[in-house]
């Protein structure tokens, strides 16, 4: 009798213990963003409109049609006067970047931001268990992850991952990687470093599709600290609720629409094809299809089902794209961090999601202030929202980004506590939003549109002689 009772009690205790272990495993799969630090380059790296003009002038192989094209791009880009570029371009050596130049560009970011994050969060580098670095277009050996380990003297058993070539949506791939490591249950502290290298990737040819990259990319970066330790939840800024990755590389057009390759003469550049918007739309649609059921409240999903069925009953051959626009994402999401790929991208995504001017303002302002900083742009957008004190406890933030391949990655964060840290926006947030976003380039170089080839050459000679 006692034996049986003892045995049953032991089984009960063991089951409870396993239950506790299972529960703690589930808890540890939470992903908390403790803090993040964006990079603000030194002010001697600012690129103004005038400097952009000078850089374009330096390329003597450009003719009238190329000038017109570049003018159109820069004017429509939505980029302002305070964006930052790499030193070698500012110093006039964009055609012949050296390995040291590229490394210097990275060092300027890594030596500042990683240390800043440790100071801000009061974490020692020896506490870091996982380090993920993604810099798409520069991948030296030893990796930049190893460079950070060396500089901060991290532990021997730190797990480093150096992602490369994954495009502008790579910071979310980094978050996905970290999230998967967190699921193992062990209490882990992870640092994600995301940036882009512009120095070695300047295109010095005449292929129009490859010149876009020159005009739009700017220097920037972000370092984030994540953990799955529930003890740090109080300190955390946001929790990750869900993350959806979509890769439509299986479609040849999508794969080829953003590709690094050589032009006819053999100069390497980043080719952006005309099929890019179409690929982006496809990837976006597929991503939203998977994302919507995970983030929207059941009421909205039920309403959508009702609307679709009604629509199908009335006009069975109607396309699904218009039906998609009628999902109200604002029912499940309070703030939208859109990738600042360009004003066209922001407008398109805003229209697709049915967003107002207020919703797209953070992305527009980030594009104006920082330019397209590639994978780190989402974090500058988040910083804007924080500086504007828009993020309150319980708010849900949706991040969407696109990248070469073609990928569309999105994730949903829930704000853990009221946030008001200005970070890199602190000194200029009161100037935003500005009265006008019109680019002053238009007035300075508007004469380009009025010229023919001959008169262009004449006025060019005059223009150059006045400098």
């Amino acid at each position: 009798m006692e034996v049986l009772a003892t045995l049953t009690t032991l089984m009960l205790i063991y089951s409870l213990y396993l239950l506790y272990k299972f529960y703690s495993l589930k808890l540890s799969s939470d992903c908390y963003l403790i803090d993040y630090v964006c990079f603000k380059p030194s002010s001697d790296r600012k690129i103004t409109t005038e400097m952009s003009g000078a850089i374009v002038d330096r390329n003597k192989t450009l003719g009238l049609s190329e000038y017109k094209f570049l003018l159109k791009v820069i004017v429509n880009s939505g980029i302002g006067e305070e964006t930052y570029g790499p030193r070698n371009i500012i110093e006039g050596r964009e055609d012949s970047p050296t390995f040291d130049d590229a490394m210097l560009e990275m060092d300027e970011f890594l030596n500042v931001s990683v240390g800043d994050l440790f100071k801000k969060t009061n974490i020692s580098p020896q506490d870091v268990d996982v380090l993920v670095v993604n810099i798409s277009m520069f991948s030296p050996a030893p990796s930049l992850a190893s460079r950070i380990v060396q500089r901060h003297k991290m532990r021997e058993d730190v797990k480093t991952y150096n992602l490369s070539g994954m495009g502008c949506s790579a910071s979310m791939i980094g978050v996905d990687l970290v999230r998967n490591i967190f699921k193992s249950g062990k209490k882990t502290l992870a640092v994600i470093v995301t940036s882009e290298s512009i120095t070695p990737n300047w295109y010095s040819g005449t292929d129009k599709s490859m010149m876009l990259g020159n005009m739009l990319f700017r220097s920037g970066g972000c370092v984030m600290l994540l953990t799955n330790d529930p003890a740090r939840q109080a300190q955390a800024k946001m929790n990750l609720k869900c993350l959806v990755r979509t890769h439509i590389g299986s479609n040849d057009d999508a794969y080829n629409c953003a590709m690094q390759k050589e032009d006819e003469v053999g100069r390497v550049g980043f080719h952006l094809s005309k099929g890019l918007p179409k690929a982006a739309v496809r990837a976006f649609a597929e991503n939203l299809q998977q994302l919507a059921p995970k983030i929207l409240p059941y009421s909205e999903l039920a309403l959508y089902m009702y609307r679709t069925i009604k629509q199908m009953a009335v006009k069975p051959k109607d396309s699904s794209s218009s039906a998609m626009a009628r999902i109200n994402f604002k029912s499940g999401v309070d703030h939208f961090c859109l990738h600042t790929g360009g004003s066209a991208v922001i407008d398109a995504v805003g229209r697709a999601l049915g967003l107002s001017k207020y919703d797209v303002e953070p992305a527009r302002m980030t594009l104006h202030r920082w330019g397209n900083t590639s994978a780190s742009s989402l974090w500058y957008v988040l910083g804007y929202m924080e500086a504007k004190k828009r993020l309150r406890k319980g708010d849900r933030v949706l991040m969407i980004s696109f990248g070469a391949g073609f990928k569309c990655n999105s994730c949903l964060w829930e704000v853990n506590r009221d946030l008001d840290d200005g970070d890199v926006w602190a000194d200029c947030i009161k100037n935003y939003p500005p009265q006008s976003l019109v680019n002053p380039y238009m007035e300075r170089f508007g004469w380009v549109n009025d010229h023919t080839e001959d008169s262009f050459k004449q006025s060019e000679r005059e223009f150059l002689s006045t400098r």
Partner: protein
Amino acid sequence: MATEPSPQFLNSIRLKYVKLGYQYLVNHILTFLLIPIIITILVELAHVGPDEIISLFRFLNELDLIYIISSMLLVIIGATFYLMCKPRPVFLVDYACFRPLPNFRVPFSTFVEHSRLVPQFDEKTVRFQIRILERSGLGEETCLPPANHYIPPTCSMAAAREEAELVIFSAIDELLNKTGMKPKNIDMLIVNCSLFSPTPSLSAMVINKYKLRSNVMSFNLSGMGCSAGLISIDLARNLLQSHGNSYALVVSTEIITPNYYLGKERSMILPNCLFRMGAAAILLSNCRREGSRAKYRLSHVVRTHKGADDAAYNCVFQEQDSEGNCGIKLSKDLMAIAGEALKSNITTMGPLVLPSCEQLLFLFSLIARKVFKSKRKPYIPDFKSAFEHFCIHAGGRAVIDELQNNLQLSDEHVEASRMTLHRFGNTSSSSLWYELNYIEAKGRMKKGNRVWMIGFGSGFKCNSAVWKCLRTVKTPVDGPWSSSIHRYPVEIPDVVKLL
């Protein structure tokens, strides 16, 4: 006439038996402890009379049904939770290596001739390259990609992409054929290539070619050196252990085309002479049904990063020389640093894999040195007792020599590494898989065998993985060694005279 065996010899035999006896005792200690317990129970049972048994049965009948059901339920719940909390096993279903065609071969004569004809190399540099090749341990069948057969080599991005497509796609095609795997069933994809990282990534290239699903989890690792293959395996393991039934495809390669050094720095010339074309594709899974056909199960992965030490960080460094040529500089203390990194790795790996007897010896030796300040040499655990096979990254002859020395391995243990270096050269992260294939092709891989893979890479990293063989691999093995295994092992001279 039989001579009296020397006292040293007798002593060593006695020692050997003592050692064997000690090993047996410690490894089976639990069994030895159980024996008295079993005897006690048997004795007790013998005392129990039939009356007591009948009264026990009557008691059980009187119990409430609820009590019985709840006990059974608890047992079932306990068992379910136990199974759910257990980390899922990671199986290596199969793997395939790139088989270079004979027209890519670079025999010594071709290498010497090409070096002489490349305009950027002066006579001193050519002589230096030839001297390295003479002592490298490479054979005449190693292969370079098509672009490197041009004089001078054409290092364009298009050529690099072509090489990537050639090596990666043939490895993956072979793997999919062997396993009967459909590309759309692949859930995770990890590609690692250290020195070539275009945008879109090589992982996107694989997704495009094989039309993988849109929700495939892809990662492209780059810049992580020759040990990146094991980093990819570690990442795949993390992914597989946090998802349901899934398949992960890991591709390890190194693209040679854009990395040919065209300068005169001696410390940067070595990679030209050693790095060769290669790739491996590995299919991992956590499906329990794969356990019946999988070749190996992953036991442990241990990663060590010595980057905090400045000398270790700088010993393998990519940079531009004074003339603007990009290359990888190798420092002179590379071997010492590799040895140190290995020691750190072993310290973590040891407790996981060594049998109890070795661990106790190591512990005693450690206590003796630290607590009692004994001056004896540190005890190096005998890893031969933990593993049957060793795959050491074929980074170069010196690396294999150093490790053989450090781990006190016999020539047979490092044969796979030496022969792979001879036949394929240094194929970077995929070399471990060529070595594994050698062991299989030689018919040495039996069920239950444990394999230790050790990789080194820039950073400086030392990563190792332990695999357990799940089924005896039958020969002949269809793989990169099919056409040449009958000629191996070969005697590799210290110096092959080329000049």
